[in-house]
């Protein structure tokens, strides 16, 4: 399957390298549109229940540690920055810089996932995982159900986001391996380019998740 990467010349269905690159990029953009629709279903569910159970959602939200969330957001934004630098390095043909920035991106992504795992673990200890043992202090009578709903959405949304992060880490490792094997040149680095698009998209999803899950009730305190 890698024949075209080893010899970055034109694949048979295309006429010119420009056509090949534009085609791949458009393909990735359309894929990202499908991702927006995919996450859109969850954002819709969140919006509806947030409106219906505003108080309980606020209470549940304020149990999340906004400082950790903010730090993690910063980590992710930095990883997007190193990703941009990686694409730039590929563009100007600097193999060493490409490898360094890809490794940095992978590390930052890893830190994000590590922090996420720590946060998830906390939820288990605090009985904030939906199920028979669930209990959230301070909610009005009948509020335990909607509070569980908040944490269900929290786990589903951050879980699917983390899954996308894991896929992104896999992609980055693939790019790293190929960068190490000198497969990218200034005239052929499309995989780095579209891998970067994917990485930024996953970041942007988090940029929406963070305020919705962590900050939504901050003004009340």
């Amino acid at each position, binding site marked *: 399957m890698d024949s075209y990467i080893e010899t970055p010349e034109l694949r*048979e*269905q295309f006429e010119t390298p420009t056509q090949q690159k534009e085609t791949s990029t*458009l*393909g990735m953009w*359309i894929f990202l549109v499908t991702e927006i629709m995919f996450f859109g*279903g969850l954002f819709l569910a969140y919006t509806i229940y947030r409106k219906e159970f505003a108080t309980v959602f606020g209470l549940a939200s304020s149990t999340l540690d906004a400082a950790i969330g903010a730090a993690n957001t910063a980590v992710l934004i930095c990883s997007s920055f190193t990703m941009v630098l990686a694409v730039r390095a590929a563009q100007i043909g600097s193999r060493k810089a490409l490898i360094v920035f890809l490794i940095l991106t992978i590390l930052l992504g890893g830190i994000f996932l590590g922090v996420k795992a720590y946060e998830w673990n906390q939820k288990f200890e605090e009985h904030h995982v939906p199920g028979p043992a669930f209990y959230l202090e301070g909610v009005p009578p009948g509020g335990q159900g909607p509070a569980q709903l908040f944490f269900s959405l929290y786990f589903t949304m951050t879980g699917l986001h983390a899954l996308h992060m894991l896929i992104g880490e896999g992609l980055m490792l693939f790019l790293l391996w190929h960068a190490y094997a000198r497969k990218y040149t200034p005239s052929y680095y499309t995989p780095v380019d579209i891998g970067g698009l994917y990485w930024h998209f996953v970041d942007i999803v988090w940029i929406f998740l963070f305020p919705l899950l962590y900050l939504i009730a901050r003004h009340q305190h």
Partner: protein
Amino acid sequence: MITEAVQERENYLNTSHGIKSWLLTKDHKRIALLYLHTITFFFFLGGIFATLIRLELLTPKGSLVSADTYSKLFTLHGVIMVFFFLIPSIPATLGNFFLPMMIGAKDLAFPRINLLSWYLLVIGGCFAMYAMLAGGVDTGWTFYVPYSSNYSNTYVIATGLGIFIAGFSSILTGLNFIVTVHRMRAPGMTWFRLPLFVWSNYATALIQVLGTPVIAITLVLLICERTLHIGVFDPARGGDPVLFQHLFWFYSHPAVYIMVLPGLGVISELVSVFAKKPVFGYKVVAFSSVAIAVLGFLVWGHHMFVSGQSVYAGLVFSFLSYFVAIPSAIKVFNWTATLHKGSISYATPMLYAFGFIGLFTVGGLTGLFVACLGVDVHVHDTYFVIAHFHYIMVGGTIMAYLGGLHYWWPKMSGRMYPEAWAKLSALVIYLGFNLTFFPQFILGYLGMPRRYWTYPDEFQVLHVMSTAGASVLAVGYLMPLVYFMWSLRYGRIAGPNPWGATGLEWQTPSPPPAHNFEETPVVTTEAYDYAALAAMEEAKVG
């Protein structure tokens, strides 16, 4: 019996041999044939369930199967036919084969993704068949909660996963088509020179890409609800079951247009070539496909008039649903105008096209009945609705699919099908279809609810008529299966352009060479320019 001419020339069928050359092929034409085999299998599998349903309904009291089995039969019929036959049907076979050829490309933009999408459909199908063999699923193809999430003891998760995986197949096909139409057109092939089949597949691809991810997340939530009880659809935790219906229909209503839009494109091709006239109002017909795709996303609530949706939402959805009739009617009127003073030939594909236009019109007009709030309260969940959507799905999509298959068969196989048998099959299918489904309009109007295995005695006459029609229909569907296979060996050699059609796919030998064209074609004429084609033929002879 195979004449030497066909054997000698290298084409996509004889360029390499062996099972591996098919299972690892990146040629869009071979992948189309892989799809053709797969969906034919699923069509007849779904047909077996339909047969059992119709046999059960011969008598008012359940006599063939139990009530539980009956629920599984109509569920599996719906799941298999919708997700594993109708959704992939025309785009994945005829679209896959001809969309690149029609725009003068060597292949789709992403050939490996194209192969992957076939594998995903097969894997999804395996999940669905596992569910079927392990004990079936009884929720109906709509999987409404809370029955599907909390109560049903059948294989909901396996079926849901199967549909989830097959959904990726559909998304990837759509993505491939969009990128291909944008980036792979031959020199001179401008947007308004695209054959209308390409336009309708493009519009379909937009829906596949925008709609399918929503059913994917819906199924993820359903599976989470069933396994982890996350409560998103569970009133006990403040969740709302109606949210499931909104998410489900946000995909599944546009999915109706995934199923029928490619068929509308096929009919535009057929009407033009067998009347030997350019399609009347080309641009309007092209845009009407896009309009259907866009409007299709705005009407999902008309499935929920009686689900406790607010009356005002119902009013808006009802109003918008009527709008879909406009682009649909534009197509029907423009086809009629194309026929006017045309030099009409009654070859088999054209018979299917005529059948399509009639049945699609009936299906479309009864769609207006059910889009009307007051009438829908009366006919909701009755056989009236069943009849309505079968007129669109079976009378529309399958007629167009078969018409297209007959039309392009000479190009795909290099050989003609037997004309007399094919005409007979078109007639048998048309009569069988109407006998099956027209009585169901009456049944539904009189109050026969859908999904019941037993009914009052006075409905029996209509049910017997319907079952009789279904047996005629089954014979009609088996005939092409037999004579198409027969024609592979004994059919007359077709030649490059047996119909005198204008599309680029007819400017290359039948079957086409592996890379479609000897050299990249340059397009200088509008679509359906029969005068230019005649001049070109004359120049060749001269």
